[in-house]
């Protein structure tokens, strides 16, 4: 167990809501409060008191708080960071501005590229150079650094990023810059690229260190305030942070490397799904999280979410790849597309229905909210197709207006294409489901996976409405909709281990394989990663997971290869080759004979062992649950309305069944069971939807 006290608090600050979950033994209490942007800690305190009251405990009884937040992401998107300077190698002042020198959208003459986080006048250079072997070619003169430091001082910068060419091979010059800056500017936050992201590829590394520096003062101040506020409210336990890789780090590590907090909320969702996968003993899971504006899809193999080394935040152009800024840190690998309940539909020049990424948001919201939204959103289509009960949406707190949905669908889709409101709604729903299915398929192909062997785990407000159809499209036989799906990320925080992944780029061809160098390198990475975990827990056993990225020499795309501790610490070239070829063949169908193979990146993830998971006993199929009523529900596979059974989720007992077409309703959402499927309530409250027969 992670903590001695059994009472734990998970807190997820999202864009709209702050979710708080308190867990005490088997009991779970949750609260949703509006995020308080000016002082985000206020919503946490509010939510904490709510769940404490529900659970009948006082804040001083909480044994541990795990926190994840979009604040870091939002600060990058909204450009609300500190006054930051970059110091880089002479000749490379514009790396973060020149990007990849390409246009991410070919067919837009008026394309504009995202501005770099720091404009050119905030980027300074020093004369120095390290080569691709890590050797110093031009020495760095401390007086040169001092001259730059004085300029930075005069300008009053609050934070400085240092990114020098090939510093991932030789950090000495970056460290020298820090030493001089610390003398001249003792109060300025400093971030070094060789520490934040010691990986090859200057654009990604420099951008990552700049992002870290840019949000560091803000996040450090927020985390400090949060600790104080919690203490003043009587909390007497440590606070930890969820990081983007799906583990937990100390508040001090988080303040030093705040860029690792980016996307921590969605990471919690993936951990949540992974935990359910473990409870059900599922080795191949597709997690599907659909909210108001986006849908996120993640592959979870062997109960572990897939991770990646680089991702993009703050996409500026229709979620298009390349339109954001790359951040190279360990991260749970997800596809995010602009498909949510609020995504708006229109008809394009080809008379094709298009959905998203533009969203109605919460104001004005979909047309059916009756708040002057005139354009049809996915929720409008869902309402017209009978998936939602207009009188019972969000537990009856938001009345829905089907007439407004019909009007919007007719005006923006139906009248253009000669369709009635139902067919237009069908088209909109099919298109958004198809977009999500395509994203899932592409993600699976990129990972050499066949989705037909997968189980879906669906959560987030809009996912249960679309999961059934998505399974039909993807040929997925089984889908689980867990309880607490609305606060899935915060629950996921409580399931995450303490972990830290350390990476380094060092090129080695198998023809120049050097076991001594490898052992030293991996031992260093292991010590670094373990050190971070030790700051969270002094005693827990720590596991090390070893991974290398390999490719055929000449290729540009590495694939991750997991190694056992023995394979890693007693390395031999033949084993590395065999492991690479095994995984390569699985991904791409065949190996390429006669080519040299190289290793480009080395990684060690130190983690506390996963919490022991109690397997769920699967319910024996019993009688069909009592229906509350029936209503007409459109079945897309049959392209027709059918009479559907309406069942109240809370009233369903373990083993009770629902036979599609059916809708299982709850306060937060509705689970749609298509005609092709039926469902059973499992003992842990999951609704388990399967192909009939």
């Amino acid at each position: 167990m992670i903590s001695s006290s059994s009472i734990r608090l998970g807190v997820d600050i999202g864009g709209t809501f702050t979710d708080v979950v308190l867990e005490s033994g088997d009991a779970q209490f949750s609260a949703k409060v509006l995020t308080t942007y000016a002082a985000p800690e206020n919503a946490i305190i509010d939510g904490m008191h709510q769940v404490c009251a529900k659970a009948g405990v006082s804040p001083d009884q909480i044994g541990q708080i795990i926190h994840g937040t979009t604040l870091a992401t939002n600060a990058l998107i909204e450009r609300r960071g500190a006054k930051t300077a970059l110091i880089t190698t002479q000749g490379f002042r514009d790396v973060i501005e020149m990007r990849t020198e390409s246009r991410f959208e070919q067919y837009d003459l008026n394309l504009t590229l995202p501005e770099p986080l720091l404009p050119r006048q905030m980027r300074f250079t020093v004369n120095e150079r390290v080569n691709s072997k890590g050797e110093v070619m031009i020495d760095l003169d401390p007086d040169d650094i001092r001259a730059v430091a004085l300029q930075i001082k005069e300008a009053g910068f609050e934070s400085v990023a240092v990114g020098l060419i090939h510093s991932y091979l030789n950090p000495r010059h970056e460290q020298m810059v820090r030493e001089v800056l610390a003398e001249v500017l003792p109060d300025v936050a400093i971030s070094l690229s060789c520490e934040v992201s010691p990986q090859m590829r200057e654009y990604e590394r420099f951008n990552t260190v700049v992002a870290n520096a840019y949000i560091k003062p803000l996040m450090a101040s927020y985390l400090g305030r949060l600790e104080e506020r919690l203490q003043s409210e009587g909390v007497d336990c440590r606070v930890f942070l969820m990081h983007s890789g799906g583990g937990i780090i100390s508040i001090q590590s988080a303040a030093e490397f705040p860029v690792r907090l980016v996307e921590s909320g969605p990471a919690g969702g993936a951990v949540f799904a992974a935990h359910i996968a473990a409870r059900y003993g599922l080795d191949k899971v597709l997690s599907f999280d659909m909210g108001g504006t986006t849908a996120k899809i993640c592959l979870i193999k062997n109960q572990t979410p897939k991770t990646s080394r680089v991702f993009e935040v703050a996409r500026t152009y229709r979620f298009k790849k390349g339109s954001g800024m790359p951040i190279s840190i360990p991260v749970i690998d997800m596809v995010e597309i602009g498909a949510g309940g609020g995504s708006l539909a229109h008809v394009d020049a080809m008379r094709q229905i298009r959905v998203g990424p533009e969203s109605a948001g919460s104001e004005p919201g979909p047309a059916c909210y009756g708040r002057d939204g005139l354009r049809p959103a996915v929720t409008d289509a869902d309402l017209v197709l009978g998936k939602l009960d207009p009188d019972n949406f969000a537990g009856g707190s938001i009345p829905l207006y089907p007439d407004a949905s019909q009007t919007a669908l007719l005006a923006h889709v139906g009248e253009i294409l000669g369709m009635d409101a139902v067919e237009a709604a069908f088209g909109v729903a099919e298109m958004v489901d198809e977009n999500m299915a395509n994203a899932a398929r592409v993600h699976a192909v990129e990972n050499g996976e066949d989705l037909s062997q997968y189980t879906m785990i669906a959560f987030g407000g809009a996912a249960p409405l679309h999961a059934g159809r998505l399974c039909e499209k993807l040929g997925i036989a089984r889908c689980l909709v867990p309880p607490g799906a609305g606060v899935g990320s915060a629950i996921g925080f409580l399931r995450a281990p303490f972990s830290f992944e350390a990476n380094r780029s060092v090129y080695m061809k198998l023809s120049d394989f050097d076991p001594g160098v490898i052992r030293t390198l991996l031992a260093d990475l292991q010590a670094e990663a373990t050190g971070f975990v030790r700051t969270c827990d002094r005693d827990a056993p720590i596991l090390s997971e070893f991974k290398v990225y390999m490719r055929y020499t000449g290729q540009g795309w590495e694939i991750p290869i997991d190694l056992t501790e023995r394979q890693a610490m007693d390395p031999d070239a033949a084993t590395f080759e065999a492991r690479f070829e095994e995984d390569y063949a699985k991904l791409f169908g065949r190996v390429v004979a006669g080519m040299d193979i190289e290793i480009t990146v080395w990684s060690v993830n130190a983690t506390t062992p996963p919490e022991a998971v109690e397997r769920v006993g699967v319910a024996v199929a019993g009688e069909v649950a009592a229906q509350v009523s029936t209503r007409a529900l459109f079945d897309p596979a049959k392209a027709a309305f059918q009479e559907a059974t309406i069942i109240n989720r809370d009233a369903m007992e373990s083993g009770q069944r629902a036979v599609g077409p059916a809708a299982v309703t709850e306060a937060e959402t509705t689970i749609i069971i298509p005609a092709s499927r039926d469902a059973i309530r499992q003992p842990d409250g999951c609704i388990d939807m399967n192909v009939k027969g």
Partner: protein
Amino acid sequence: MAQDHSTVAYQVMWNRLISVVEEQAQALVRTAFSTSVREAGDLSAGVYDTDGRMLAQAVTGTPGHVNAMADAVPHFIRRIGRENIFDGDIYITNDPWEGTGHLHDFTMVTPSFHKGALVGFFACTAHVVDVGGRGFGADAHSVYEEGIYLPIMKFADRGTVDATLIRIVRGNVREPDQLIGDIYALATCNEIGHRRLIDMMEEFGLDNLDGIATFILDNSRRATLERINALPRTSAEGQMTVDGFDVPITLKVRVSIEEDRIVTDFTGTSGVDKKGINCPMVYTKAYACYALKVAIAPEIPNNAASLAPFEVTAPDNTIVNAIHPAPVALRHIVGHFVPDVVFNAFDKIVPGLVPAEGAGCLCNFQMSVRPVANAPADARRAEVLTFNSGGSGARPTFDGLNATAFPSGVMTMPIEATEHAGPVIIWRKELRPGSGGAGKTRGGLGQYMDVSAMEGHEFDLQAMFDRGDHPALGRRGGHAGGRTTIALDDGTAMRVKGKQFVPAGRRVEMAFPGGAGYGNPMERDPAAVRRDLARGYITADDAAQDYGLSPEDIAAVEAAVRRGEDV
């Protein structure tokens, strides 16, 4: 027999086919060996009906394959013969005239069978590492010197790969493993497309693609013709002169808007060059078509029907319609200038839509590095190719893009990766202040690059630049962009094109061109001028002379920069 499906079902299928070809292209990016494919996106993938009509094409890094791909499959059907098309076949060619413009592009086509019947084709193209011959450069005098040539033929016959063909290819190229690896990657990518197509046909109960093909092509044709018929029914001429190899090249074009079509004719353009910078018609057609499509119908996907109304013609033996056996290895140089000259004409038909001239062709160079006598033990030979971009032309309402490819869409490589690829040092790669042509909207900045070999090495630099004597020209009073310059660090002059020796210890210093400006610079928003000055995109002299910024404003900007303020 077309099957009956609802409009919603056809919409879903069209969406799906576009996703299928994107997957097909992604598979190629991940398995290819050639840097131009994997780093730069120089590839293409598409799906076709049984008549060879292209139904969907992946949007990748190069518009140069747009029409070439659409035309290629009918060539394959004709050459192979319908009676010889079997399940398990894979076809191959690198024919510059029936493929995509030079021997370095390999195109592979796979027939797709479902329930025993031919239902369509998949095709893909990639720029490979090496095809033998003289290597990648402009130095050949005919296509015969440029490398091995494979006419359209079977790579695999009913599942059996032609081993003789593989041996011949291996024996004729410098990097046989990589080329064979790329050929297999192309075959795999078609296979992935095929499998996904069959999945879709089973899901929707299709026996053939007739219904969905008609739906896609009808809607695309109608949308494209609506755009064309909304244009003024007139014609206009455009012209542009660029450096060429030894003699300047003039590109001349007449764009005519007619009912249901746009005709782009290159009569009056210079004849073929002695060196390998000539462009086969397919490649010219691709870039002419891209220029018009991006201007008037950017969101209409590429397929047989949306491309057909864009007709492109040129007299034989002009540099934009080079006939076999003209050397064509660097056909991209002329090809990349085609949009600028088409825009020069189109701007007279619809003013205020298209940009001013830009850097045009990519600023690529290859370094052939070798050890000198008494070199250190780890010295080695290497071929290092880099892709780089100058500035794009100013748009009517936006500045040009700094150091960003247009019309090509390829990416540069990280310099840290380039330095791992061979014993070279990139000393400088940064924006080139002052190179963006002044205007109401400013041209994009070019860039500086300084390179050398590592100690103990010398090298030949294969330069593939232009705009040394002929900078990008402005529109509506905008100024020209900066010219290309290239010299050794000891001041020795170098040429913008061709193979040139660089002794050990010397650096090559290059400045790549900027895009041209649009409109009178004196009308530029003073806030934008102050911002440009603060960022160092322009000098204080430029700000005063070109844009009329007052000495007080200049002093205020400089003070703000010292205070660390964004301007």
